[in-house]
């Protein structure tokens, strides 16, 4: 970047840097050396494994002692778990199903939350800013939507979810396919929402910092803006995890309890 001289060249350099930073790669850039990852593992794949290990360690250590009243970290984690169970799972799926499916939503919530927060921590990459990762997460939701509805209501009951009661047949011919496509579109929207949110936030931060590189010292105030956006990201990370889990629960409830 130092060799670039004209504004256009510097702009291009910043653009290249930003997009190489937010995209998946085969090496992990640490401060003094590059870790070249083996062929079967990419940077975002590594982040997924790290996130999983963090969660296993966190919950394993916090709940090692079988305290009746959890203390410290375990208490904080339990509060979040209870929030997910009561306000996301049970609120949408009802008492019985909500309790049964709470582990799924807790897993989704904590996994997405950890990945989002790791994006803000230096040295780590944002795995949720990768379309493949968010697609895989949304496919879990789609799988539970379809598989769970067939398991719960049977094939006929599952099909009935796309045929609202009390609607004349001519309308139904148009409506049923739309409802069926809607199931996939909802999942797709879930994918894009998380992906674009995480990606856009990081691009904005880097572009604001890049303004200093492009225009020199006159653009220094944009660093303050970048810090502001960075703090906003801290808020957005749990919010997006919450929204992803909440919408998953809502979509699953819509298919499982069609008449609601």
């Amino acid at each position, binding site marked *: 970047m130092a060799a670039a001289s004209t504004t256009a060249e510097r702009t291009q350099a910043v653009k290249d840097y930003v*997009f190489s930073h937010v995209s998946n790669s085969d090496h992990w850039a640490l401060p003094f050396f590059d870790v070249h990852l083996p062929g079967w593992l990419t940077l975002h794949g590594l982040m997924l494994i790290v996130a999983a290990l963090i969660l296993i360690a966190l919950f394993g250590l916090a709940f090692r002692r079988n305290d009746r009243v959890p203390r410290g970290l375990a208490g904080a984690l339990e509060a979040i778990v209870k929030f997910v169970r009561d*306000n996301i799972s049970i609120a949408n799926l009802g008492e019985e199903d909500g309790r049964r499916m709470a582990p799924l939503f807790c897993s989704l919530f904590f996994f997405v939350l950890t990945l989002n927060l790791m994006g803000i921590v230096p040295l780590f990459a944002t795995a949720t800013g990768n379309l493949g990762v968010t697609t895989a997460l949304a496919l879990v939701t789609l799988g539970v939507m379809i598989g769970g509805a067939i398991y719960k209501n049977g094939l006929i009951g599952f099909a009935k979810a796309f045929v609202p009661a009390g609607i004349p047949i001519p309308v139904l011919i148009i409506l049923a396919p739309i409802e069926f496509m809607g199931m996939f579109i909802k999942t797709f*929207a879930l994918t*894009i*929402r998380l*992906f*674009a*949110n995480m*990606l*856009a936030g990081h691009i904005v931060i880097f572009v604001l910092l890049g303004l200093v590189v492009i225009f020199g010292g006159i653009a220094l105030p944009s660093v303050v803006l970048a810090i502001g956006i960075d703090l906003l990201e801290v808020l957005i990370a749990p*919010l997006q995890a*919450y*929204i992803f889990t*909440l*919408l998953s629960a*809502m979509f699953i409830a819509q298919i499982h309890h069609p008449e609601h």
Partner: protein
Amino acid sequence: MTGTVAAIGAGLVAIGAALGIGKLAAASVEGIARQPEAAAKIQGAMIITAALIEGVALFAAVVCLLEVLK
């Protein structure tokens, strides 16, 4: 010049999303002011709706981004 056109698109997206979320926020703040005890419920509904509006905006933002990267 594709970059310029995509930037205009991103601006239009911002206008649309801002209109949507602005109306939503105005209505929910008014609702909370009228009925403070329902604040929690209104907030929950507000966040869900904001996420849905934002989803549409982000769809468009991703399209603009693809145009830039092309």
